[in-house]
């Protein structure tokens, strides 16, 4: 009897090789040699303390939503809405942070917590829609991204618009609620450490807690979970809520660490790139930290390559897009291998 065997899970090394080959091709098309292109990429991202700090800042921005996505995907819930959850987290953090005066040791946690709650509500909404109405979470989270964007657009150009700014943004945050920078005068803040701590915590949750156990059961074998006392409805909105919360925390970290106000240009698509980050990291929180660093290099390197090697920044996004396609495909790449019918 023949049966399709899944050989999907390719190692990260292959992905890396593929990226290098693709980038070389793009560089040749853009009229430089791969050698020159990679040299400018590396010097632009890892060439000095400021470059490294910028790369790590990009890493941080991707790491939060990627960890949120990881949590949901491990439960078999395809949360495509990290972008909207991140945006709403940033919005609540900006709205509350601007009006919260107090010493940093209390104000910063409050701002981060409000981002956490904002993202959590947005994620839990999709989770609730799934458990209550059986709404497909891929569709609902994707659509909620737009709802989040337009909601935020409305609020920052209306009720929450800063009285002092000309553009559409919230009132600035007082310096006491700014996240401390790790390297002075860069965008790299303590948020990186928070994200890494969350990764470690997630790994602990997956391997040691009943919540993590049930979540993995739901992801690997939903029918077995249902028949073995896993409360799927409750778990679904809880996981989606926490998933959104982690992404929302990422939004709050950008607002309080970098922009010091909220506007809808907060994210150039971190929530979408983070899907690729989570998949390249094989949905393992610790590998995802590494994958986020790799994507951080790509994101930060785009500008550097444009400046020094004359490769358009968009080329980087093309490569990221191809990586996502390859990852999506490799989950379905099957080969027919004969296995005994026993």
């Amino acid at each position, binding site marked *: *009897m*023949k049966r399709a065997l899944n050989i999907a899970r390719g190692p990260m090394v292959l992905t890396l090789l593929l990226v290098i080959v693709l980038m070389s091709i793009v560089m040749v098309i853009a009229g430089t040699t791969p050698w020159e292109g990679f040299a400018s990429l590396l010097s632009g991202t890892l060439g000095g303390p400021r470059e490294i700090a910028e790369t790590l800042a990009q890493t941080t921005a991707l790491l939060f939503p990627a960890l949120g996505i990881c949590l949901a995907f491990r439960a078999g819930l395809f949360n495509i809405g990290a972008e909207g959850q991140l945006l709403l987290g940033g919005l609540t953090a900006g709205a509350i942070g601007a009006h919260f005066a107090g010493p940093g040791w209390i104000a910063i946690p409050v701002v981060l917590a409000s981002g956490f709650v904002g993202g959590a509500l947005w994620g839990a909404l999709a989770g609730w829609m799934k458990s209550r109405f059986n709404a497909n979470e891929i569709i609902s989270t994707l659509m909620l991204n737009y709802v989040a964007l337009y909601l935020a657009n409305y609020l920052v150009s209306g009720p929450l618009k800063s009285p002092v700014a000309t553009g559409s943004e919230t009132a600035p945050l007082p310096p006491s609620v700014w996240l401390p920078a790790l390297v002075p005068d860069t965008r790299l803040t303590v948020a990186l450490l928070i994200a890494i701590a969350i990764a470690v915590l997630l790994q602990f949750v997956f391997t*040691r*807690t*009943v*919540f*993590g*156990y*049930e979540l*993995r*059961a739901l992801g*690997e*074998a939903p*029918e*077995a*979970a*249902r*028949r*073995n*006392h*896993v409360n799927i409805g409750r778990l679904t909105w809880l996981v989606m809520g926490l998933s959104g919360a982690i992404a929302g925390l990422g939004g709050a970290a950008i607002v309080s660490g970098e922009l010091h106000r909220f506007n809808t240009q907060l994210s150039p698509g971190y929530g979408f790139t983070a899907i690729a980050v989570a998949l390249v990291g094989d949905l393992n929180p610790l590998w995802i930290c590494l994958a986020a660093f790799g994507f951080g290099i790509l994101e930060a390197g785009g500008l550097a390559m444009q400046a020094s090697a004359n490769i358009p920044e968009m080329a980087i996004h093309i490569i990221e897009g191809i990586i996502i396609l390859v990852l999506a495909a490799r989950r379905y790449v099957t080969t027919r*291998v*004969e*296995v*005994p*019918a*026993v």
Partner: protein
Amino acid sequence: MRGIRKAYPGVVAVNGVDLDLYPGEIHALVGENGAGKSTLSNIAFGEVKADAGTVKANGSVGLVHQHFELVGRLRVWQNIVLGREPRKGLRIDEAAARAMVTALAAKNGLEIDPDAFVEDLPIGVQQRVELLRELEREPTVLLLDEPTAALAPAEIDAFFATITALAKRGTAIMIVTHKLQEVIAYSHKISVMRHGELVAKLDTYSTSVDDIARAMVGGDLPPVAEREPTTLAPCLTIDDVTAGTGAARADGVTLQVQSGEIVGIAGVEGNGQTALADAIAKMIDYEGVIGLDSKPAIVPQDRHREALVMSWSIVDNAVLGRQHDPGIQKGLLLDGTRARRDAEAIKERFDVRAANLDVAVKTLSGGNQQKIVVGRALIDDPKFVLAYNPTRGIDVGAAALVQSRLMQARNAGAAILLISFELDEILTLADRILVMYRGKVVGNFTRAQVDRAAIGRLMAGSAA
């Protein structure tokens, strides 16, 4: 077939088998799961290519699969001509096709309504359609893979009458099966496979079920644990329960299971057993009353989908369904030490053959997987156990062990509801036997008054 050999990664499925089939002869191929029967029949049919050896046949070979390959929403005649429809221009010549099917059915003595939709037909009739489809090609050799797995006893008799008539007209027939009673009753020759090799060739008239079983297992059958006297006390009360939808629903079922007894529900697949089991497990809504004062321990019917997380280790699976039990859940944490200890206990008590407790259960044989499922259900000495086909598709040794452990749980005072499609299993284990047909309990026997023939008639829907 000469010197047939076929290896798959990690296992030699068939190793140097010679087998001859003769016109007019019904040849039974028996063996445990994984012995290589299916592989050998697929090689004979040409669906699987052998690594070595030759297959020669005078004429064509037909194969009737265990799981029917019919299109439910097409009519009988459409299914039979599927793939070689008589044509009239671009259209199917319906009149010719229908006439062809009617003639074919008459010639083989198989009664059939060519215009019925296949999905509306009982399993036994669907099988006739499947058989007719193969017979239309007039095979000189006909292979039947577990042909009676889903049939009621009366349908089985009718089926073998057809097969015997077919053999008399000169077809060579090979039946792959594990039902030894049928082998004795209807075959002429028997080949026994074990671990990919042909270990015995027997003439049916000079052998017995015990001889065949010994050849299959390679020794004496492990005995099932003794039935001991118990004190009965009410445990599960089901009163007028209706659940599920359509033909396979449970319809006003009333029954009791007491502590210290095994109640067996006999019946052909699809007569409401699944709906009843799902209602007891609280997996579906139901009307009526199900009275049970403890958490039921459940051995579900589909171990791959419903009982195990196949990619997980034995340790992780050992606490599935028990993750909230005190002693396993410690605050927010899952007690990994306890999980490992329980996995070790299950492995010990049920003789689970695995290199260690951290291997994924999908790498284990079906028998060992089922031992984990049953072992987990029994580990906390439950008051009530629902066992649905607990030995289906597993080897004889594992089956005997599972049956023994169920009997021991009963002896220790558990109330056990056993739903099984294998009448023999129910006759071996049950203290009382109920028969389900079309969602209703149509028969009730104590162990003392068991009448195999009467149960068989009830299973097929006729009055006892």
